[in-house]
């Protein structure tokens, strides 16, 4: 995901950080001894969602580690993790990407016993179950690619083996965004995306691995296709899905497809599109322009995604220790609170609670009515007093996940079909 607007917000803090880092390094130079981690630089890359300069500033402050961040879009992230192993120390990638990247051997397994808050990590990332009663959704569920057999394991383990591929950092449940003022009636199902009522006013995202899942949610809701596993379709299922969407495209259902966060915001805010696949912060960005926009919960459930931090295979010694220190800090609460106040979820929600006000915790996590104005960490007003988060509480939203973003066995075939769909 690309969140260019985030980068815009924090430009000033970049300048500040730069200044502070210069001053900091100048002052701490004489006392190098005993504080090796102060001089360590870790290079992290990932999507704009969590690669925020605020995190780098805070980690410098708390641990003294210098974090060099590079924010890229989803496809470029995969590309870099797979093809340029020497260009990073820490990869901040999505779980479904791990399936592509792990076989390259560019990442190393992490020892779960070195992770302080391991036991508090949400069940979704450990055994796949949010609560002991939950069932596991289709697609590349994070726990299926979260563990390997041992420190040198090459294949994914089906249990909590103690060796993790990624440390979960951020996740959310995605659905369709709508403009309630332009639609004027309740929207309850994924089928509405292809409803001729919205001809020329619908959009989906042009990132094949995510877009195909949105398509599948729609086709299944329409009753046109029953998938064995939406996250691992057969060739026939892929063909049928694209046939339905190609027909809709030719009939003029879609106004445009979008690839970046900003495009989705502009399509929605300008009224070019009234219903489309969307990401949570994009909804926020539309709302902050005083344009009504709802992240509509749908009866078929959510399409979910999760991101995590992986360690480069070449990390060792002091740098490796610093990376573990960084991971433990990441899960200790500050980052979690920072992310949750933007509408994402943290892997260890209970540690984040200390870094949020009661009002914020109630609104974002518990789905309660806000008692006061809700503002983003960047200072934008997101909701007034007396409002409830779209979709409700953490357990309501993450409990209604129908599928996870995924990479399927027929991925290459799907990608070719996707190209045909775009060109059709």
């Amino acid at each position: 995901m690309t969140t260019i607007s985030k980068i815009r917000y924090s430009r000033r803090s970049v300048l500040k950080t730069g200044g502070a880092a210069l001053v900091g390094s100048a002052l701490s130079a004489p006392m190098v001894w005993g504080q090796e981690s102060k001089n360590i630089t870790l290079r992290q890359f990932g999507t704009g969602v969590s690669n925020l300069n605020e995190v780098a500033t805070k980690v410098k402050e708390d641990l003294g580690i210098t974090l060099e961040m590079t924010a890229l879009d989803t496809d470029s992230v995969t590309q870099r993790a797979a093809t340029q192993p020497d260009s990073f120390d820490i990869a901040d990638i999505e779980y479904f990407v791990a399936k592509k990247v792990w076989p390259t051997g560019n990442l190393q397994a992490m020892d779960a016993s070195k992770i302080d808050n391991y036991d508090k990590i949400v069940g979704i990332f450990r055994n796949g179950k949010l609560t002991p009663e939950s069932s596991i959704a289709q697609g590349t569920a994070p726990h299926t690619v979260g563990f390997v057999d041992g420190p040198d394991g090459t294949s994914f383990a089906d249990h909590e083996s103690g060796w993790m591929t990624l440390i979960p950092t951020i996740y959310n449940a995605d659905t369709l965004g709508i403009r309630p003022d332009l639609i004027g009636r309740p929207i309850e199902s994924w089928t509405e995306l292809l409803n001729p009522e919205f001809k020329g006013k619908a959009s989906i995202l042009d990132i094949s691995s995510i877009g195909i899942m949105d398509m599948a949610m729609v086709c299944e809701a329409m009753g046109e296709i029953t998938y064995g596993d939406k996250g691992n379709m057969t060739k026939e299922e892929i063909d049928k899905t694209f046939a339905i969407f190609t027909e809709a495209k030719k009939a003029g259902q879609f106004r445009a497809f979008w690839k970046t966060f900003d495009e989705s915001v502009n399509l929605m805010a300008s009224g070019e599109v009234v219903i489309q696949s969307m990401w949570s912060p994009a909804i926020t960005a539309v709302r902050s322009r005083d344009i009504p926009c709802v992240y509509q919960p749908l009866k078929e459930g959510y399409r979910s995604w999760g991101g995590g931090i992986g360690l480069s295979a070449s990390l060792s010694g002091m740098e490796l220790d610093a990376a573990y220190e960084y991971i433990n800090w990441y899960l200790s609460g500050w980052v979690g609170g920072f992310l949750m106040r933007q509408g994402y979820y943290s892997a260890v929600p209970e540690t984040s609670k200390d870094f949020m006000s009661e009002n914020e915790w109630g609104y974002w996590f518990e789905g309660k009515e806000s008692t006061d104005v809700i503002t983003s960490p960047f200072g934008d007003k997101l909701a007034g007093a007396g409002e409830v988060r779209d979709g409700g509480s953490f357990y309501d939203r993450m409990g209604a996940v129908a599928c996870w973003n995924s990479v399927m066995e027929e991925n290459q075939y799907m990608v070719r079909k996707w190209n045909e769909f775009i060109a059709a």
Partner: protein
Amino acid sequence: MTKQITAWIQAAPMALVLLAFLVAPIVMIVIVSFWGATEYSIYPAFQFDNYQFLFGSPVTYTVFFNTLKYALITWALTLGIGFTVAYFLAFEVRSLKWQIALFLICTIPFWTSNIIRMISWIPFLGRNGLANSTLISWGVIDAPLEWLLFSDFSVILAFVHLYTLFMVVPIFNSMMRIDGSLIEAAKDGGATAWQTLCHVIIPLCKPGIMIGTIFVTTLVMGDFITVRFMSGSQRANVGRLISNDISLLQYPSASATAVVLLVTVLIVIGLLLRLVDIRKEL
């Protein structure tokens, strides 16, 4: 003998630069186009899979047709506009000072990035954009025109906007080199303005037109970003096919498409050069 060696040495730097930065990359692309790819890696091989898939898919033909269509329409429009502008500058504006001033004004849009110039069309052409609201307030239309944005129309509009200057410059250059006495002679011989244009000016502008044509067709055929933004990702040309493949780590398949595109462009340029011998004309 020494003369020959000196000549070789004199030609060597340019030859080496071209070899390293033009020939070598193209050779690499051709080689990789025969390789195979998995999800996350590419492996050396000599197989025709990529080409087989490319020529076996009906989408390839549609996309190449689209690319040629964009190139042809954009060429016709930029030529029409570019020739008119150049003609005005060269023959209607008399003083050299004004010619230079007006020519510089033509280049003003180039002071910003072409992405900005392209994207600024989007709010203008949108459903609730300036164009539609103006037309509605004038009573010309009742409902917003949907085809203004995210359509072939908007793609070609952006191309014409971006590339017309590439036509103006070489044509203007050719026109400035036309000997004024030739036009006077035509007039004295009793030719009408139209006859002068057709039989004197246009033939003498051929090299300029040809250089402009080569610029515009190669730029349009190699483009992917204009098509993506202005069509809202709804249309595809060959450039987009390649960029999609690259973003999905399918380098061999992207290389194969690039090779076919390169050959197509070379054929087009070859045909153009048969029409006009630029070297002789210059």
